[in-house]
């Protein structure tokens, strides 16, 4: 998360881990959707925590090493997933109470998609509230700006960072389970999601949740229209948007200037 000054390229893979675990719980063992959500989130969170405690915590304030290290984990985790779950893609699955559709403004809309939107919005609001309005968020921001001073105030930054990393990874996992409703799960998913997330972050600006939201919205819409209007250029429109935005505003739409 940009907010923690850690660049975690393994985030996309954590998403994938969450999706796989959630899928296994919900489809293979027939657990209710909520349990799948929890299992996926927890699994991704624990893997993330292990990466943070085992490796990343030695590399704070060394962005280059963080990038490289987490990219190494992209390889390791995708291959482990391939090992455990095999190469065949998993179909999208839909939780029972989310199947079907409902009427809204005289049109029908699938419930599962609505649920995705709601979960996404709730997460976004909670995150923004956590970062900007709570003590924990203040600690994280303080620790990011001045580590020594924050620790001097008696805050156990190690624990805060570990916790934040755990939560961030959990969210990636939950997102994976939710996303699997629509996209299914397959092994290249980790990299694809990572790429998408990077583009969103580049467009929106690093370290700003509002920026991520705006970037996500913009890229989502552009991608959808791009696919509809010029199907041959599938990914192309998205990259083009990114390049244009970089040329005009190198630090992203809502990024901090540095």
């Amino acid at each position, binding site marked *: 998360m940009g907010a923690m000054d850690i660049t975690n390229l393994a985030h996309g893979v954590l998403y994938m881990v969450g999706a796989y675990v959630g899928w296994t719980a919900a489809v293979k063992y027939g657990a209710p959707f909520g349990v799948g959500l929890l299992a996926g989130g927890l699994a991704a969170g624990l893997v993330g925590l292990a990466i943070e405690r085992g490796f990343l915590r030695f590399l704070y304030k060394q962005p280059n090493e963080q*990038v*490289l290290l987490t990219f*190494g984990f992209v390889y390791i985790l995708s291959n482990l997933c391939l090992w455990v779950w095999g190469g065949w893609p998993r179909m999208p699955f839909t939780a029972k109470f989310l199947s079907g559709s409902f009427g809204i403004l005289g049109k029908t809309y699938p419930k599962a998609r609505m649920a995705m939107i709601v979960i996404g919005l709730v997460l976004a609001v909670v995150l923004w509230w956590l970062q900007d309005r709570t003590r924990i968020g203040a600690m994280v921001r303080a620790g990011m700006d001045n580590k020594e001073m924050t620790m001097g105030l008696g805050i156990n930054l190690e624990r805060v960072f570990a916790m934040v990393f755990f939560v961030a990874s959990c969210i990636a996992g939950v997102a994976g389970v939710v996303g699997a409703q629509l996209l299914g799960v397959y092994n290249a998913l980790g990299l694809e999601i990572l790429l998408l997330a990077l583009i969103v972050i580049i467009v929106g600006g690093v370290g700003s949740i509002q920026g991520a939201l705006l970037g996500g919205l913009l890229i989502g819409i552009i991608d959808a229209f791009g696919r509809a209007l010029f199907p041959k250029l599938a*990914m192309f429109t998205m*990259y083009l948007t990114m*390049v244009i935005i970089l040329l005009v505003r190198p630090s992203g739409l809502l990024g901090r200037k540095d």
Partner: protein
Amino acid sequence: METARPETIAQPVGGPLISFAPYIAIGGILIIVPPFLSTYFQGIMTRFLIFAIFTMGYNVAFGYTGLISLGHAAFFGVGGYTIAVLKLQYGSDLFWIGFPLGILVAAVIAALFGIIALRVSGLYFLLVTFALGQLLYSIAWNVKWLNSPGMQGIAGLSLPSFGIPGFVISQTSFYYLVLLISVICFGLVYRIVHSPLGLALVGLREGEARMRSLGYNTWLYKYIAFVVSGAFSGAAGGLFGYYNYLISPTHLGVGTSFLPMCMAIIGGVGTLSGPIVGAALIVFVENFASLVTPDRWPLILGGLFVLAIMFARQGVVVYAGRLWNSFGYRYGSIKS
């Protein structure tokens, strides 16, 4: 990033014979041994040299200038695609056209990408080069002109022809061609690194603000390093096309970009011989691993990489060099 200084700064230890002995030994092995190897191992040696060129070029930007790019496969792949398109669309596999053209096209692409990517620095630079590389990947995937009919990528390539009547290149002579080119590349990188330009690049890595206040046009220097490094990657890519008989979008993608980065880090970032040692290690381990457990190779590569970042950040070369130098102190002609 804690990187090793160029070798000039840490050099004068041991007699000239002692400090050059490893180079002479390795050079000798590279020249003498291959004809006696099976075609299979010759292929691996060729592959190793190609990736050594790729990594040497990458290291100009990464190790010396401190630009972390995750999109260098774009230039590598473009070099390969140039010779592949020449073969597919124009039926030409002439070395004198394809190889230089590949370098040129790669340099042009690097010049374009550099304008975009160098608007930002540090982490953003990495992200942008990453995305730009994937941009080329998606283009190669979708444009018909860049694909053999019915597949993704261009197959059916061959070793180059030279326009000399009656001469058909064998795998062994192709190996020597690649060896020759890698020696030239090594010489070029050596010259660049030891020129005022190279020193300026290292200065940039160590403190860009200071260089700017000394009156250097830092953007221009970074740009030059980026384009030069792209050109080297293009050269490696062209040779790779001839060697591999197949170029596919994967060779433009992030997986391929990851390799030189891995090799440079494991060998020794910002050293002359690091990329070569790193390339050798990765290519040979890859080959060994794919014999034993082909499916687990990415896992091993990732593991090696993580270990290198955590425990051997300066790379194998620096540690080996230290060992060798202490050997030189003990037995060498120069008393310390």
